[in-house]
């Protein structure tokens, strides 16, 4: 009992490794998300480079067919679940409480749990690399290739368990942010005064809450097929392989918006800040985001036009898919409206935001061409689609995230990222990205299928594939330049101050980096762009050149040790570790023991035990 009592005394150290492991501070958790997700993003990039090297020329043999299958499967899984989603989550964590004028999220320990579960889930998903082969049936994992007969390695087991564990993280985080945004806004911040980034976080969180249960059902069916011999997708036993496709894409298409909406939110913050103008058509931008969130549920079968759904279903899903281009177009036109007549300061965050708009338009237009089922019959599963998704998810999501990185890095660290290096970073990524992905439209239409590890010469694909590979390397250099910029600016970067961009939202009203408690006094909000209004008055500074008022949202920052903040806790990482053991035990069925006549395995039982102890300790943990 003595040890439990010792553990139950909450950790107090504000510095050192333990402070990070036990932290419940949304800003630190945001940084943890950022560093972890960026590391996974680099790993996913290495996987991409290996594939591009293999496809550089015809009949190449840099990697084997089996390794290539693992590379494209893990590249997609890593970029989607361990890169873009948690990078967005890093911004949700760091920025949402600051922008809504709160001191933390609604459930700080649950927030820590989300992070640790994400970290362990990411490791779980990648364990296959070290244990005889990572997942190799594509990130979409179409049944019945995923049955154990066809994919015997543990790679697919790690896929199932990894995604289930990551689902726990996403659901916990999504609920946390919904509740935070609905309940913890500063007085006066009505829904229609929320920054667009907050709106997009809210919509994304709702999408997560509704989408993950659907994939969870599919994953459990697959888990039962692989481990317990059920026949959900086993055709010989009467299973149906199409059912997986429906379950996967009912999740998978909203997932696309989960990936892009946060980036749209970031861009909707950056463009006004660097145009010195409010966002054009705020209610239309907000509602088009909400409408996309709803319409995203009615388009999933456009991934299935080649399955022979019949002309009626094809026509319906074609029209719904085309309709979703309307709210997307509305967003783009409003961003143009924001630029129009503004005073555009072309600093690196702005360059990435403008790059986002430019590249996303291309991805949107190619998307319309496969919203038409007959055209899609030629484009499906070719490099044309690879081009499309990378314009949307790299040119879109990643450029949006880089805009956010350059924009908020000074708030996180009180250092500005170097502007010159930043511009080099942007142009390398912009040129590299277009060189890598634009030719894919072309050789896709020339009939090059996706997911082939090699191709003969004489198909007309050689030259443009080489261009793509060179573009990929330029892109990779661009990413390395960014990494260099972060490390050098952390040490030598210009000190940013509280408000380096003449910002519009509340996070710029407080010190950089923000104190533990964020706001010395909770601000009172009187309109949209709350901080801008404080600086320039209700007239929004028409004609003014310098701020009229001193910022007041932060209040005084001297001696605020009296502000009560939640204490750190050991339990989130304990519960997460239990979940990891539970999943590992399922994969390996290590040392099975019989319990009440049923086979149980020790590792999973241990995991469940740790989860229960963790939850128990969590619930009776004293306030520090």
């Amino acid at each position: 009992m003595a040890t439990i009592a010792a553990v139950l005394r909450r950790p107090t150290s504000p510095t050192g490794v333990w402070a990070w492991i036990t932290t419940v501070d949304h800003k630190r958790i945001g940084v943890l998300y950022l560093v972890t997700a960026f590391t996974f993003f680099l790993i996913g990039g290495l996987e991409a480079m290996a594939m591009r090297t293999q496809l550089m020329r015809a009949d190449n043999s840099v990697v084997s067919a089996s390794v290539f299958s693992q590379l494209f499967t893990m590249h997609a899984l890593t970029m989607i679940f361990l890169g873009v989603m948690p990078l967005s989550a890093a911004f949700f964590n760091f920025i949402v409480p600051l922008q809504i004028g709160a001191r933390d999220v609604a459930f700080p320990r649950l927030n820590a749990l989300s992070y640790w579960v994400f970290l362990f889930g990411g490791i779980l998903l990648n364990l296959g690399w070290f244990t005889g082969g990572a997942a190799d049936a594509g990130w979409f994992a179409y049944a019945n290739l995923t049955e154990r007969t066809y994919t015997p390695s543990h790679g697919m087991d790690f896929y199932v368990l990894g995604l289930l564990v990551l689902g726990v993280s996403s659901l916990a985080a999504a609920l946390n942010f919904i509740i935070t945004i609905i309940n913890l806004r500063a007085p006066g911040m009505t829904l229609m005064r929320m920054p667009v980034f907050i709106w997009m976080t809210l919509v994304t969180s709702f999408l997560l809450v509704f989408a993950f249960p659907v994939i969870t059902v599919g994953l459990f069916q697959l888990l039962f097929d692989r481990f317990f011999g059920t026949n959900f997708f086993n055709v010989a036993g009467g299973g149906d392989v199409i059912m997986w496709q429906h379950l996967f894409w009912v999740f998978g298409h909203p997932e696309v918006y989960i990936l892009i909406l946060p980036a749209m939110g970031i861009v909707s913050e950056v463009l006004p800040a660097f145009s010195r103008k409010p966002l054009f058509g705020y209610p239309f931008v907000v509602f088009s985001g909400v409408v996309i969130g709803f319409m995203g549920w009615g388009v999933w079968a456009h991934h299935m036009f080649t399955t022979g759904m019949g002309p009626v279903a094809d026509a319906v899903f074609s029209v719904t898919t085309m309709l979703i281009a309307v709210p997307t177009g509305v967003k783009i036109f409003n961003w143009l409206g924001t630029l129009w007549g503004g005073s555009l300061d072309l600093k690196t965050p702005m360059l990435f935001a403008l790059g986002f708009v430019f590249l996303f338009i291309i991805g949107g237009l190619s998307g319309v061409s496969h919203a038409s089922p007959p055209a899609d019959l030629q484009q499906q599963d070719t490099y044309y689609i690879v081009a499309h998704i990378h314009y949307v998810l790299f040119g879109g999501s990643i450029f949006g995230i880089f805009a956010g990185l350059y924009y908020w890095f000074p708030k996180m660290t009180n250092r500005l990222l170097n502007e010159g290096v930043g511009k080099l970073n942007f142009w390398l990524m912009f040129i590299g990205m277009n060189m890598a992905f634009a030719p894919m439209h072309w050789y896709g239409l020339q009939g090059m299928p996706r997911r082939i590890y090699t191709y003969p010469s004489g198909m007309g694909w050689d030259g443009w594939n080489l261009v793509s590979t060179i573009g990929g390397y330029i892109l990779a250099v661009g990413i390395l330049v960014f990494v260099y910029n972060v490390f050098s600016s952390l040490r030598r970067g210009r000190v940013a101050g509280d408000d380096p961009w003449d910002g519009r939202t509340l996070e710029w009203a407080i010190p950089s980096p923000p104190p533990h408690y964020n706001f010395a006094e909770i601000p009172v909000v009187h309109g949209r762009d709350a901080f801008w209004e404080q600086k320039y008055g209700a007239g929004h500074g028409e004609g003014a050149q310098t701020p009229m008022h001193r910022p007041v949202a932060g209040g005084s920052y001297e001696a605020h040790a009296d502000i009560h903040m939640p204490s750190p806790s050991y339990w989130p990482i304990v519960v997460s570790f239990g979940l990891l053991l539970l999943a590992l035990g399922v994969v390996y069925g290590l040392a099975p023991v019989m319990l009440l006549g049923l086979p149980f395995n020790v590792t999973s039982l241990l995991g469940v035990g740790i989860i229960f102890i963790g939850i128990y300790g969590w619930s009776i943990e004293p306030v520090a």
Partner: protein
Amino acid sequence: MPQNTLAPAGEVARDILSLFRLIFWMAVVVFVVVQGLLVYAIFRFRRKPGDTAMPAQVHGNTPLEVAWTIAPAVILAVIAVPTIGTIGKLAEPPDGKPVVQVSVTGHQWWWEFQLPELGVLTANELHIPVGSRVNATLKSADIIHSFWVPRLSGKSDLFPGSRTTSRWFDADQPGEYQGQCAEFCGASHAHMKFRVIAQTQADFDAWVRAQKAPAATPTGRAADGAALFTNPSKLCYTCHTIDGTTAQGKVGPNLTHFASRGTLAAGLFERTDENIATWLRDPLAVKPGSKMPNLGLSDTDIQTLVTYLQALK
């Protein structure tokens, strides 16, 4: 470019391309207008050094919002109408031409083609008559594959179990049209190719007659090869069928008229003595995961089998 969707050689591929052209040019117009506005705005409204004036704080414009909601909707309607027309047309072969039924079965990693009305069974090379429409019924023997001949028609997936799909297409001119599996299906997905060989009706009829003829009677070294093929220690017969012999295996392609085909191993090689020998020596070295194992054949056995296989006209 043998798989170029932009060089259609049949009615279906041409209809799809003309629809794609419409979408493409509308996209080009939207691209030029919108990106033009973006680039113009960037240059026109760039902050000049020393310019500290606050721009007019415009919050929105409702008529503009209505306009740019309606404009994309109209453009999409222009695309949607012919899209739905083409969906209808592709659903079933239109009247006016004779129809040849073809049954396609996908295997990891090869294609089985059957012409049930004509009693023909072959692999990896589908012969069709010009002037007829082909109505293909598709299914899979193991996992999902996708049938795709880019110059003739779009994709259609093949499913295991009782679910079948169908796709019709035709070819304008005699010629060879390359196809390839388009749904990831495991290690050798890249090597699951096939050819559609369009012929004049007379050539097609001659091909059908040749395919229905019994297997050639081997002589000399080829006869030794025939004996090897059905020798219990060599195992060929357990997976392959050659009509009129004891070889009745159903795992791999039917080889009764092997030498009438231009390629082997699902389009991986041209059918030359040397390539057949390479294949027999170690199939897995050239086609990862192939169900055909390394049979440990001696060089002499390989040459003998090559002679036999090349005699199966």
